[in-house]
C-alpha cells in the first residue's frame, strides 16, 4: 500500500511556513516512516537550501526531490500559490528511488541515463514508472520528449512536468535531497506491484486556417505564411506580446489530422522570430487556437473522469496532477473547478501536483512518453497487493 501525507502552508513568513508544513506532515504520519518526499513551491525568493535541510532533518532517511512551480495543487486547498507543499510517501510494497539529471541543455539523454542508473542502484526490483521535473526554461530548445524516450525506454511510462518560476520566466530550480539545481531534472523511479493509470487531455481548440511554417529551426520560428513570425502573430492576435505564451499553435504533422500544441515563449526582437517551447517537426502545418475556460475545464474534467472511473480492480492510492501553467491563467478564479471531480470523489484519494511549463506523459500506458504543452496530465498510483 502507498501511504501519503501532505503538508501545505502559504504563510508569508517562509520560516513559519516550512515549520507549519513539517508539523502538519509529522502529525499525519503518526508511526509511518516516509521514504520519499516531493516538494513544490512557487516562493521564488525562498531560501531553498534551508527549506530542504529542515525537511531532511525532520524526516531522516527520506529521499527528497522537487522543483519550483507556477502554483501548487493539493487536495486540501486545491490550487494554491506562494506556498510550500510537501508530499511524503511510504509503502511496504513499493520501492522509491531518486536521482538528479544535470546539465540537461548539454545532453539531456546522457544526463537522464546517468540519473536513472544511479536511482536504479537503490532498487531491488525493476521500476514500473518514473516521475521527473526538468527545468522548464533551459529545456525549451531541446527535444525533451525524445531524450526521455531514449533514456527511460521508448514505452516506459514517465510522468511529470517542467519546473516553473511563477510565470516570471527568469530561472527555475530543481531539488534533490539537500541540493538546489538549475538546468537539471530530479528523477523518481517507482518499483513494485503497482497499477498506474493516466490520462492526457488538451485544453485549447484549434481555429481558422492552416498555415505553413516557411522558415524555422528547432524551436525558433522565423517565418510563417510569408511574414515574420512576430508580425504573423501580431496580425492574428493583436499587440499582446506578453500574452503570446497563452495562445499555443496547434501543430499538424504531415498527413496527420490529430494535433499537438506548442507554446510561443518570447519574441526575439532582432529578427522578429519567436521562440517556442519544444521544437517543430518537418513539413508541419499550424493553426491558431482559442483558449477558453470552458475548454480548459472540459479537458481537466475528461482526464479526471477517465482516471477515476478506471475499472482495474485496483483503487488509486495517490493521484498526481500536472496541468499546464497557461491553462491556470485562462481559468483565473475558476482554477479550482478543475479539481472538483477529484474532490467530490468519495474515496478521498489524496492528490498532489503543480502547474508546470510543459507536461510529460504518454497518451496511454504502454505508448511512448511525450512532452506536451497546454494539457492536463493526471496519474493515479495504486499498489496491487494492498
Amino acid at each position, binding site marked *: 500500500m502507498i501511504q501519503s501525507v501532505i503538508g501545505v502552508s*502559504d*504563510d*508569508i*513568513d517562509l520560516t513559519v511556513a516550512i515549520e507549519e508544513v513539517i508539523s502538519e506532515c509529522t502529525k499525519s504520519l503518526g508511526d509511518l516512516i516516509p521514504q520519499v518526499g516531493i516538494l513544490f513551491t512557487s516562493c521564488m525568493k525562498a531560501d531553498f537550501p534551508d527549506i530542504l535541510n529542515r525537511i531532511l532533518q525532520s524526516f531522516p532517511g527520506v529521499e527528497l526531490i522537487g522543483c519550483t512551480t507556477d502554483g501548487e495543487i493539493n487536495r486540501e486547498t486545491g490550487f494554491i*500559490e*506562494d506556498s510550500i507543499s510537501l508530499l511524503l510517501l511510504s509503502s511496504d510494497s513499493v520501492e522509491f528511488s531518486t536521482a538528479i539529471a544535470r546539465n540537461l541543455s548539454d545532453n539531456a539523454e546522457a544526463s537522464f541515463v546517468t540519473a536513472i542508473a544511479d536511482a536504479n542502484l537503490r532498487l531491488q526490483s525493476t521500476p514500473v514508472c518514473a516521475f521527473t521535473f526538468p527545468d522548464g526554461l533551459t529545456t525549451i530548445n531541446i527535444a525533451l520528449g525524445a531524450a526521455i524516450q531514449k533514456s527511460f525506454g521508448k514505452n516506459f511510462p514517465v510522468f511529470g512536468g517542467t519546473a516553473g518560476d511563477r510565470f516570471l520566466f527568469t530561472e527555475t530550480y530543481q531539488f534533490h535531497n539537500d541540493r538546489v539545481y538549475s538546468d537539471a531534472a530530479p528523477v523518481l523511479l517507482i518499483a513494485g506491484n503497482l497499477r498506474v493509470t493516466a490520462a492526457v487531455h488538451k485544453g485549447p481548440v484549434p*481555429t*481558422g*486556417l492552416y498555415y505553413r511554417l516557411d522558415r524555422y529551426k528547432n524551436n525558433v520560428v522565423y517565418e510563417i505564411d510569408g511574414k515574420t513570425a512576430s508580425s504573423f502573430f501580431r*496580425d*492574428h*492576435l*493583436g499587440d*499582446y506580446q*506578453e*500574452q503570446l505564451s*497563452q*495562445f499555443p499553435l496547434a501543430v499538424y504533422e504531415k498527413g496527420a489530422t490529430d494535433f499537438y500544441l506548442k507554446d510561443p515563449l518570447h519574441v526575439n526582437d532582432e529578427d522578429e522570430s519567436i521562440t517556442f517551447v519544444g521544437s517543430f517537426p518537418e513539413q508541419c502545418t499550424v493553426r*491558431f487556437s*482559442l*483558449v*477558453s475556460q470552458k475548454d480548459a475545464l472540459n479537458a481537466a474534467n475528461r482526464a479526471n473522469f477517465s482516471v477515476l472511473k478506471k475499472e482495474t480492480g485496483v483503487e488509486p492510492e495517490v493521484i498526481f496532477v500536472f496541468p499546464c501553467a497557461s491553462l491556470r*491563467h*485562462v481559468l*483565473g*478564479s475558476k482554477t479550482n473547478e478543475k479539481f472538483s471531480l477529484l474532490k467530490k470523489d468519495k474515496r478521498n484519494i489524496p492528490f498532489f501536483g503543480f502547474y508546470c511549463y510543459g507536461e510529460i506523459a504518454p497518451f496511454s500506458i504502454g505508448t511512448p512518453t511525450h512532452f506536451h504543452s497546454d494539457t492536463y496530465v493526471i496519474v493515479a498510483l495504486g499498489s496491487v497487493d494492498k
Partner: protein
Amino acid sequence: MTDNPQMYLETRVDALEKECAYLQRKLARLREQQIRQEKINDINRYLLKQTNEKLLQCHKLSQHENLSKSDFLANMSHEIRTPLNIILGMANLLSETELDKTQMQYLSSLRITGRQLMEILNNILEFSRIDAGKITIEPEPFSLQKIINQIEASALPLCLQKKLKFIVDHDPLLVMERIGDPLKIFQILLNLINNAVKFTQSGSITFSIKEDYTTENSLILVVMDTGIGISKDQQQIIFDRFTQANDSLSQQQGGAGLGLSISQKLTHAMGGQLTVTSALGKGSIFSCHLPLPPAAPSDRRRLRLDASLILPENFPDLKILAVDDIKENIDVIKMYMKDYPVQIQTAENGRQALELFTTDAFDLILMDVRMPVMDGITAAKEIRKLESLATATPQIILAVTAHAFQEQKNKFLQAGFDGVLTKPFFKRELIQTLFRFTTRDLLVPSPDKMGNKAIGYCLENEKPEKIPEPLRTMLPDLLQTISGDLTLMKSFLRDEDYESIYATAHSLKGVAGMFGFQKLASLITDLSQTVKVGNLIVVDELFSVLDMYVVQLKTEFN
C-alpha cells in the same frame, strides 16, 4: 497577555502586519490574474474576428473559383457539343448507308454513347445555368394533360426498349389546368423518369399525379419504379451533384449524376420539395411536391382547348396577312390552313406589309422578324405609329421567329407585337395561336405572352408516302433551294463575307425548321456558330455533312 498590555499590543500589531502583507500579496496575485484574464479575452475576441474575416475571404474566394469552374465547365460543354453534333450527324448518315452486321453494331455503340455524351453535356450546361442563378421561374397557366402527353411521348420509347410497363395515373376529377412553369416541371419529370428507366431492369415505371392534401393548392408528382432501389445511406447523397447511388450500375448506364440534382434545384426554385423513399431490390418513389394552384376558370377553358386540335367548323372566318421573305415558309402556313376558313394574303417584307396594312384590313398579321428591305420589328413599330395617328382598333400582330429565349420574346412584345410564334411550329400551334388571338375577346381576357416550341414531330424522319401530298410536292423545290443556299454560303465563306453567311444561315434554319428538318436546322446552327468562332476545319466538315445530308434527302424525296 493582560498582565503586559504593551507586549500584547506589539504581538497583535505584528500579527496584523503579517496578515496585511499576506492579503496584499493575495491582492497583487489577483490583480495579475485579472489583467492576464482580460488580455486573454481580448486576444480571443481579436483572434475570432481575424479568423472569421479570413474564413469569409476564403469562402468568397472559393465561391468565385467555383463559379469560374462552373463557367469553364459550361463553356467546355458548349464547345464539345458542336463537334459532337457533327459526329452524331455523320453517324446518322452513315447508318443509312449499306453496312454489314459488325459495322452496324459498331455504329450502334457509337450512336448510343454519342447520345449519352450529348445528354451529359446538356445536363452540365443546365446545371451551370442553375448554379449561376441564371434560371428564372416563369409561372403561367398550363395544362398538366399536355405535360402528361409530352412525358408519355418521351418515356414510352425508352420503356419499350427495356420492356418496361409505363403507367400514368391520376384522379379523373383532378383539375389539370394549373399555374406553374411547365417547361421546368417537364424537365424535372423527364429527369426523374429517365433516372427510373435507367435503374429499372424489369417491371414498371408509374407516373402519378395527386393532390397534396397537407398543403393547399399543391400537387404531388410521383415517379415510382420497380428498380434496384437506393440504400438509406445513398438516399442522403443522390441529390448531390455528380453523385450516383449505385456506382457499378451507374457506370454501365453512364451519365454525369446531374439529373436528380437539377430536378431538386428546380423543385426548390419553384418553392417545392423533392423527396425519395426506397427499398433495396424493390424500387424507389420520387415525390415532387409543388405548389401548383388551379388556373382561373377562363384560363382553364383556354388550356383545355389548347390541348386539342380545333376543328375547321369551330374556327372563325379570318383574313390574315403572312409576311415572310422565304416563300416556302408562307407555303407551309398556307398548307396548314388549307382546310380552315382563313383567307391568306402575303407580303415579302415589312414595307410591303405596311402598304397592305394601309389599304386593307386583317384580323391578324403573322410577321417574320428578320427580312430584307424592312424587318418585322420596324414594320410593327410603323403600324403602331399609324394606328396611334388614326386612333384605329389595334391590329393583332404576331412575331414569327426562331428566337426562343424569354428575353428576346419580351423585346418583341415591347416593340409592339401582341405575341410570338416560335419557329419551327406545327399545324396545331399555328391553328391554336390564330384561334387564341382572334377570339381572345371572347375567351381569354388578355394573353400577355405566347409562343410554343414544337416538340416531337420531325418531317425528316417520316416516310415520303406518309407526308401529305401538298407538302410533298413542295419538297423538290425546297431541297433545290437548300442546295443553292449552301453553295452560296460556301462562296460567302471564300469571300470572308461572314455577315452574309449568318443571314443565309438564319433564313435556311427558318425554312428547315418550318418543314420539320430539325437535324438540318441544328447543323446549320452549328455551322453559323462555328463560322463565328473561326474554326474553319470544322466548318469544312459541316459543309460536307450538310452536302451529304441534302443529297440523301433528295434521293429519298425525289
